[in-house]
């Protein structure tokens, strides 16, 4: 598009008072070649009319120097066919400068903000959404338990075709082994008869659902809207099985014959099975397996007859009568630990209450002891606990179980620290241990992706092997776009929780396909029409982009060059930050654009006091924090020039070089917390950035520059009262170091 530029400076909200807006507008018109107008309130009706007037007379590339781009978005939205760039003259200029701030310093800050905005406007292009040649909107659901069945049923109800695959010969999963199930509705007090059979019937009767039992996934290739899935008979191996990830060192070891190739007989991940089936999205619901509790020697599982797990007890109860005296042990106890068995969540408390009732149903004089540390019946399940209590023969106490041993025909359970204020000795016929529910994803790849980054979800150890999202606000996010998980693989949960969970996962699968169809990104940049474009002629196949993409979006093609899969991409730009050749970029966000913005900053080379510090700031958290700091009138050094970035992961080190070589005196990156409790919306961005910055620190020192001139700081969105001092301290540090020796070169 031929750009017809126009710019504006708002003098409202104190901007006019804090700046010489005429001088500013003059600079913009002259220096940046953006005709510039001022107005006392651009967001007002008359202000917008002013802009619309210019648009009607041809302006299509507009720079607005006013409030933060985070506010007044509707007011300054002039349609998708216009380029509108906002320069932050309010929150991050006049509002964060005290009255005592030297006028020329503030003016220079404003000028640079305008320069950067104009540069951005010149470099920016209108996005053209990425469209797959052909999109498939069928959903593959893996796992035929309650979760899988529900996901399939709900997706079908919304009008989508579903294929449901199940390892076993019949549908139903664990639930078909249940004698009774937990209450699913008010008053929440009584057990219900299993509803699984009905659910299975509904699914089998649904014309939109294809059921394939005794079937597994060999591999899933492709991308959302165009997944290529190879199925196989359960338990068999196939040449199309997803290859295990082999690191570079492992590859060497294999070459040297020091290590067996795990992928013998398997096609490489890039190979495409011509007979593969097409799907648009995948729901993983492969469930859980009962935990092994034999490690707790004092409880005797595996050694003592009639010491069973809750899962084994359910089988007995389903098969027939259960013994008359049963002790249910909820926590390994022994030492002073009061934790439940691993992988329990609150489900095992519910199971014990349920199974205690079996004991009473089957034996008029039966007695069920429940020895718990913490009775865990959250929310409405409290009423179920209440209901179970009322049974004469159900005896409960908090207790540390110290020993289970054989006693005559039966078993003896000893426990201390009980509510009876006595140590207990219980003579019982059977002991039931509250074993947890181990997610399928803990030991298996489960999802079997034919991706460069390997077949499984990454870093699940963070969540004990559960396929969890780690985002409290966004529980369905995974690091594999288009693949959503539900049921036992996510957490140990009750049936009604699972049903909601699976329904939600179905929605996310649908949403992902529809977004791909519209050519827009999914969470967190939902609706973003841009996507990374590659200038492959200059690609050196260094693979950094494919390695560092937090979402495994990039594969290799046959020739070994990176193969972007735009519908897998979340648009964080980590690949762009990684690329040493700088061949990756978005229409409205690329290496050249930011580099040019950096260079647009005017660096006085003769004034010791006028240092220039570049701040590359995460637009999701740190940038809002800066806005808030401004609203709260915290003073932020006016030597700093702020450029928002999609994610620190997208920061290309060349920008730092650009900054320093153009004479700027320091560069600070503000990004999200990383580590186990990372807050980065793109999971790895801030972590990767800090790693890159360490390296650049080294290169700097080789150039004779202090590595301290480059720093990364973790800033949460709620740090609006401390972010100012974070920046100002860095500025003081730079003052200490003195001006950049390369100034003026």
């Amino acid at each position: 598009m031929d750009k017809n530029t126009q710019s504006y400076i708002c003098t409202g909200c104190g901007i006019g008072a804090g700046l010489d807006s005429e001088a500013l507008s003059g600079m913009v018109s002259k220096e940046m070649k953006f005709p510039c107008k001022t107005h006392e309130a651009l967001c007002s009706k008359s202000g917008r009319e002013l802009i619309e007037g210019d648009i009607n007379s041809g302006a299509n590339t507009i720079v607005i120097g006013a409030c933060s781009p985070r506010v007044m978005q509707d007011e300054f939205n002039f349609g998708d066919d216009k380029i509108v760039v906002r320069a932050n003259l309010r929150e991050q200029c006049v509002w964060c400068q005290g009255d005592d701030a030297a006028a020329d310093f503030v003016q220079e800050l404003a000028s640079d903000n305008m320069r950067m905005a104009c540069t951005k406007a010149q470099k920016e292009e209108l996005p053209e959404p990425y469209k797959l040649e052909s999109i498939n909107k069928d959903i593959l659901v893996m796992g035929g338990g309650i979760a899988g069945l529900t996901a399939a049923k709900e997706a079908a109800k919304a009008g989508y075709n579903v294929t449901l695959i199940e390892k076993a010969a019949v549908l139903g999963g664990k639930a078909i082994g249940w004698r009774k199930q937990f209450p699913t509705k008010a008053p929440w007090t009584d057990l219900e008869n299993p509803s699984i059979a009905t659910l299975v019937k509904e699914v089998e009767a649904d014309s939109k659902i294809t059921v394939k039992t005794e079937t597994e996934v060999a591999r899933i290739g492709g991308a959302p809207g165009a997944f290529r899935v190879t199925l196989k008979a359960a338990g068999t191996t196939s040449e199309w099985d997803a290859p295990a990830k082999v690191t570079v060192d492992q590859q060497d070891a294999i070459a040297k014959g020091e290590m067996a190739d795990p992928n013998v007989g398997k096609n490489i991940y890039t190979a495409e099975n011509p007979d593969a089936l097409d799907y648009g999205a995948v729901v993983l619901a492969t469930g859980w397996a009962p935990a092994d509790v034999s490690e707790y020697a004092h409880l005797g599982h595996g050694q003592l007859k009639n010491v069973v797990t809750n899962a084994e007890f359910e089988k007995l109860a389903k098969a027939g009568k259960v013994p008359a005296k049963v002790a249910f042990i909820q926590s390994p106890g022994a030492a002073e630990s009061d934790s439940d068995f691993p992988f329990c969540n609150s489900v095992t408390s519910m199971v014990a209450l349920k199974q205690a009732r079996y004991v009473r149903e089957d034996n008029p004089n039966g007695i069920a002891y429940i020895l718990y540390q913490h009775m865990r019946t959250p929310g409405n399940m409290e009423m179920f606990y209440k209901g179970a209590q009322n049974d004469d023969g159900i005896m409960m106490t908090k207790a540390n179980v110290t020993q289970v041993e054989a006693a005559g025909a039966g078993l003896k359970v000893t426990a201390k620290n009980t509510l009876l204020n006595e140590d207990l000795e219980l003579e019982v016929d059977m002991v039931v241990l509250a074993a947890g529910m181990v997610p399928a994803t803990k030991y298996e790849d489960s999802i079997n992706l034919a991706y460069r980054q390997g077949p499984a979800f990454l870093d699940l150890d963070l969540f004990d092997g559960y396929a969890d999202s780690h985002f409290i606000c966004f529980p369905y996010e995974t690091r594999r776009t288009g693949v959503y998980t539900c049921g036992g693989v996510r957490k140990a949960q009750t049936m009604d929780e699972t049903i909601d969970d699976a329904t939600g996962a179905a929605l996310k699968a649908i949403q992902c396909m529809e977004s791909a169809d519209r050519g827009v990104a999914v969470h967190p940049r939902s609706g973003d029409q841009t996507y990374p474009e590659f200038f492959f002629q200059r690609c050196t196949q260094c693979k950094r982009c494919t390695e560092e993409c937090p979402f495994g979006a990039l594969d290799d093609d046959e020739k070994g060059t990176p193969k972007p899969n735009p519908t897998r991409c979340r648009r964080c730009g980590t690949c762009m930050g990684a690329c040493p050749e700088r061949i990756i970029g978005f229409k409205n966000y690329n290496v050249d654009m930011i580099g040019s913005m950096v260079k647009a900053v005017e660096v006085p080379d003769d004034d010791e006091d006028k240092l220039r510090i570049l701040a590359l700031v995460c637009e999701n958290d740190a940038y809002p924090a800066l806005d808030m700091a401004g609203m709260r009138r915290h003073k932020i050094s006016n030597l700093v020039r702020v450029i928002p970035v999609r994610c620190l992961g997208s920061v290309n080190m060349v920008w730092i070089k650009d900054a320093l070589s153009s004479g700027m005196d320091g560069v600070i990156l503000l990004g999200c917390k990383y580590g186990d409790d990372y807050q980065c919306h793109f999971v790895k961005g801030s972590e990767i950035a800090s790693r890159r910055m360490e390296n650049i620190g080294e290169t700097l020192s080789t150039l004779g520059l202090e590595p301290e001139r480059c720093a990364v700081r973790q800033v949460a969105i709620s740090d609006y009262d401390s972010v100012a001092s974070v920046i100002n301290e860095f500025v003081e540090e730079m003052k200490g170091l003195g001006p950049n020796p390369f100034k003026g070169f």
Partner: protein
Amino acid sequence: MTDAGGASGMGAVLVVGGGISGMTAALEAAEVGKDVFLVEKNPYLGGRVAQLNQYFPKLCPPSCGMEINFQRIKNNRKIRTYTMTTVKSVSGTVGNYEVTLETAARYVNSSCTACNACVDACPEERANAFNFNMDKTKAIYKAHEMSFPMRYVVDPSACTKCGKCVEACKYSAIEMDMQAKSFTLNVAAIVWATGWNPYDPTRMENLKFNSSDAIITNMMMERLAAPAGPTGGKILRPGDNKEPQSFAFVQCAGSRDENHLEFCSYICCMASMKQITYIRERYPEAPITVFYIDLRTPGKYEKFREKLMADPKITFIKGKVADIIAEADGGVTLVAENAVTGEKIKQKVDLAILATGMEPAAKSMGAACGVSMDSNGFIVGDADKAMLSAGCAKKASDVVTATQNATAAALKAIQASRR
């Protein structure tokens, strides 16, 4: 898009409640491509979580996710939001409900730039309900630091209509004669995400909430710890602003109790664990006692608890606090029986935090809108009628569970709007 004028769209989804659950339901539906109306009774979106300092177990600020959701809303033409708006009546049937709503007068129009001139000019003050009345705002105020929409609002009960703010506002954004507007929407499905209110602590007579400033609720604690809270994030005792040297948490203050809330409020145990970390950050040595019936920190929360159990200065006592005595020095003495040792404990502390539970908000307004509720006031959804419930309007739960079932509700709504 924010605060659009009265519009109506067939096959659209109405989401009632703009907290984390309502926003999630609305966004997830809109990002599939549905038209969504999101209404919220407060002048801002975010609901209860907007008042929280951090989420457990990650100890991350809720505003982080809020910001993303606000951006999602701003960038999505499919969503129209209405703040200060409540549902008056619902008629019609699945696929075509006619909903009458009313938007209360904000007295500040969309010309507001949040420049703060009006606040500087306003001579009147009001107790700040957002901070549980632990501080004051002017009669014209911004609901909270990150309120969205970022626009002021007038509290008519505190405003004397002196007109100073009107003079001060350069953008004629303040309309003292603004009236409540009612309008109707035609929608295919309704998601009720009306959330919860903190249970009124004064109703537990034996805990004597009003007898001492040293007794606060867990929600008050969130505000005390919040950087934009009444104490700027310092945990000080209300009233005398003393730095407490000892703390105690009173679990199940109202929850799991037939006389108050029959159900378990799900979050209070983890909330207290989280708040212990607030205290530790500021008072590394202060002794902390937790009185509980059961510690409900299941699954991934267990790790979090184990860390705190290792702290030698934190004591966990199985026994419910059933009496609190105000002491002369401003502190309080909590009385409970340690059920494991069988001894009575009298614990004197400088600050006691009542882990009060969730009372479903629908309990008070639900019936009027013809939603069906269980005996505790939780909304019982009916997918066939496309009357759905989400978040804590459906059941007491943590944020993860709430956003999960809100996402589920979105799909149910979409199914209905296809019919």
